[in-house]
């Protein structure tokens, strides 16, 4: 599907102290992913920042709509790959040519062509591992407990419903206002999420 670019104008975070509210946030439920996408854009335009959307499958542009920065995982992977590749070749050279040089069938001590396969494999392996771990670190997984699970309807978030949750600690959050706003987004339902 075509991706619509949304211009993100980041507002400065107001430095006002809030005491922990008993409420985690307000959650709106949608039936179609297009609705969610639209809602997200609206909310962002409205100035909401501390919010997140939930969907049973990845929706293109949703993250941008919510103003999430690009994922750093590609960088992780690149770094992993470089480390893995250089590290491996160095290890092989060290083991074969320096630490215990042995005449193996009259082949050169540093038989670089023979060292390539292992170098290649470990490059891939370490790169992959970094990407994999990236997902866990950046998503702060595992996280079996989360306030959103308090919402009974939320179980459909992994099935056929789409949710937008504006957190109570958002500077612009004001219960009745925000509720009105969400209801205005053709949400099937708006519920409160306890802490």
């Amino acid at each position, binding site marked *: 599907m075509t991706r619509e670019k949304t211009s993100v104008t980041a507002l400065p975070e107001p430095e006002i102290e809030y005491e922990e509210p008993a409420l985690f946030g307000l959650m709106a439920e949608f039936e179609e992913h297009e609705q969610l996408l639209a809602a997200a854009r609206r909310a962002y335009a409205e100035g909401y920042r501390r919010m997140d959307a939930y969907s049973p499958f990845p929706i293109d542009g949703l993250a941008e709509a919510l103003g999430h920065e690009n994922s750093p995982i590609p960088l992780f992977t690149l770094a992993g790959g470089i480390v893995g590749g250089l590290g491996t070749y160095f290890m092989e050279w060290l083991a074969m040519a320096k*630490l215990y040089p042995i005449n193996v069938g009259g082949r050169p001590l540093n038989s670089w062509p023979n060292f390539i396969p292992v170098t290649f494999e470990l490059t891939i392996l370490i790169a992959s591992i970094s990407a994999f771990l990236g997902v866990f670190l950046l998503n702060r997984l595992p996280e079996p407990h989360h306030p959103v699970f308090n919402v009974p309807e939320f179980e459909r978030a992994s099935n056929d419903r789409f949710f937008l949750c504006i957190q109570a600690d958002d500077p612009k959050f004001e219960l009745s206002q925000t509720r009105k706003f969400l209801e205005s987004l053709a949400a099937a339902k708006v519920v409160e999420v306890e802490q």
Partner: protein
Amino acid sequence: MDTIQGSEPRMPDPSKPYPVTVLGYPAEMIGPKETYARVSDQIAGIPLKHPHPKFWLTCFAIAGSLFLMFCVAVGYLLFKGVGIWGINIPIAWGFAITNFVWWIGIGHAGTFISAILLLLHQKWRTTINRLTEAMTLFAVMCAGMFPLLHLGRPWVFFWLLPYPDTMKLWPQFRSPLVWDVFAVSTYFLVSLMFWYLGVMPDLATVRDKAKTKWKKIIYGISCMGWRGSARHWQHHQSAYLLLGGLATPLVLSVHSVVSFDFAVAQLPGWHSTIFPPYFVAGAIYSGFAMVLNLLIPIRRLYRLQNLITTRTLNNMACVTLVTGWMVIYGYIMEAFMAWYSNDPFEKHMMWDRAFGSYGWVFWGLMLLNCVIPQLLWSRRIRTHDLALFFVALSVNVGMWVERFVIVVQSLHHDFVPSSWKMYYPTKWDVITLLGSIGMFLMLLLLFIRYVPMISITESRELIALRREGQL
């Protein structure tokens, strides 16, 4: 809401044929009536409310008993030594290495489908990639065992790993066997991570559909508390894509490395530059065949025709046919090179391969691998479950035989005639092979019983796409 009854899968109506494209190929990629809810219910329903316990139990019993035989065989092997196999000098590698190469080959389809086809935007892979990835994992497990078991002293296998030991010695990195160790373990780990990334959100679905406390807890833990938030999806997707990208060269490399076990050696019949591509093609060939062998019964028994559609099978059959021809090209090249090189040893090897003591095996191979698969030219075969199943079976057997010919026949007549011998497998060779198949099936059955075997998430994407008219 009761999941299975909730969505009665659409059976193909024999009276009217399935919808076809202009070219006359099956059009359906996913049943037309499918909705998010229905796919969730249907797929997640299998682990939660297992629909067909009877046949499952029977299969599991069979696979399990084969696996037990395998354990006995391995125990006896460790107790007596590799001498219980038929190997000798000159044929120092027999079934064990043949099985190794075969299993690794089978293990290729999974990552090929989930990674390469992903990058090529082949949407039809969606509903089968989960299963094939699982198959890959299990196949690689089976494969990985053989190099260890075939060692004269398996308990010192760790000398093949680099670590600062008390001898100041290191693995000999020039040896293809060391490459194998790294290639196979890398392939396994990467496939595992790729597979788990994919399955994580679906486990969340199962968690949310689960009725009992324990199921909730178990699936809740295993999905790491997945919420499907936009941020989750963002990182998930980028990692998934990257792994796909990384796995792609990996698929090609693994069997190339395996082929080096032979190509690097001097032996006529092994020492050949065509081996890497030829092995990779062969691997995907047998891999796809194995997938077909698994999909066809599974989609029947679990009535998944609405998700794993005839179109999917048809496409797979096509890929099989193409890779098949690559393999045939390999055979032709081998023979041609033997003649063209005018090397007495190569020439004799080729002659002996066709007309020597193992000639009948070779011709059997030709039949299974080159002749029978030509049936796939016909659409009626490609779209006929049973026929397709048997063609795939012949390919699987054929590929095993091919590896046997490469390993054993090349060894049994090498340079110096005085040391030419024959190889006769013992019952232990056979038990070990069957046993490994048992282990493979056992793991697979456990998988389809407890884990969603089709990617729910990606099925939903398909539906979304269709609703946007993009299919």
